[in-house]
């Protein structure tokens, strides 16, 4: 018996999270939304859509939200893998389903999404260059050859989750997670994913200057 828990970090996503959660509950059944101190009614929307909802009493950051969701999923002894999924609706359920299938049937412990394995995802030039650079940096520091190191769609098997702990609360967690996953030495493959950039998700995207903050967080941990 295997059970997938979907971990959805969210922060002020009331407009879209209900629809996203409904689709996830229909497909996977077990969804936990970690509300990072939203000021809107995200938590209520997610709860009504059928998710378990954990509310951070204060804003801690997306990395902390992911770890909270993972801690919660680990409380369920029947959980076999966790799927991380962004609340803003930029990921595709089809991609997620295929990735979970690869973990279950392909003897893989880690499957992460990549925007660069096929031509479906439309990216601006600057964003493409930034993401490719981030992937090259993580190849240098971890030895893991990835095409996309900052994709929010991931499937992590239980034994992986028991061996990692995200300590970077803010945006640097994506790079930290690559390091942690590479350190486990468990079988890892990338899966082509389609990311749909809507005006909504674009408005929530982070500025490129934030890369400076991420770099400092990683250097002085």
């Amino acid at each position, binding site marked *: 018996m295997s059970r997938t828990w979907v971990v959805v970090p969210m922060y002020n996503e009331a407009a879209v999270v209900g629809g996203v959660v409904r689709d996830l509950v229909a497909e996977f*059944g*077990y969804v*936990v939304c*970690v509300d990072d101190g939203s000021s809107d009614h995200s*938590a209520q929307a997610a*709860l*009504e859509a*059928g*998710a*378990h*909802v*954990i*509310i*951070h*009493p*204060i804003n*801690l950051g997306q990395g*902390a939200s992911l*770890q*909270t969701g993972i*801690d*919660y999923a680990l*409380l*369920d*002894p*029947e959980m076999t893998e966790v799927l991380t999924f962004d609340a803003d609706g930029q990921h595709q359920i089809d991609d997620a389903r295929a990735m979970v299938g690869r973990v279950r049937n392909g003897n893989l412990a880690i499957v992460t999404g990549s925007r660069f394995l096929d031509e479906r995802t439309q990216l601006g030039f600057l964003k493409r260059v930034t993401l490719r650079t981030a992937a090259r940096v993580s190849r240098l520091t971890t030895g893991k050859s990835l095409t996309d190191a900052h994709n929010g769609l991931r499937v992590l098997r239980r034994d992986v989750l028991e061996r990692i702990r995200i*300590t970077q*609360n803010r945006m640097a967690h994506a790079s930290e997670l690559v390091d942690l996953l590479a350190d486990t030495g468990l079988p890892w493959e990338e899966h082509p994913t389609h990311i749909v950039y809507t005006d909504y998700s674009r408005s929530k995207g982070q500025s490129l200057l934030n890369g400076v903050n991420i770099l400092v967080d990683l250097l*002085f*941990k």
Partner: protein
Amino acid sequence: MTIILQIATVVVISAAGFFLVRSSGARHQAIRRVLLLLFVIAAASSVFVPELWGRAATFLGIGRGTDLLLYLLVLVFLAFVATTYRRFRHLETQNTELARALAILQVKEPTGAHGTSGSTDAH
């Protein structure tokens, strides 16, 4: 003689870096306090016996005693920044664990969820 100061500078900066990467325990706190005490004594002596600082500065090849004091101040400040950064990160980690534990305890479960059998939900 400036080589002495240069070496001292490197040593202090390395020490600051050491504090940056090591966790703060009781021993480190003691070392920090001893260093602070030394700095207080040095600062006070510069008021009462400035000629001592002048001689020390000449010995080190810096020039004036005030310059020596300024250099020391810069180094102490760097060390302060390093230890403070470290301490804030530590506090942030503790804060996160506390908030997380509290949040998980207060989880809201969807009504009538996963009702196939009474034991499916182990939370």
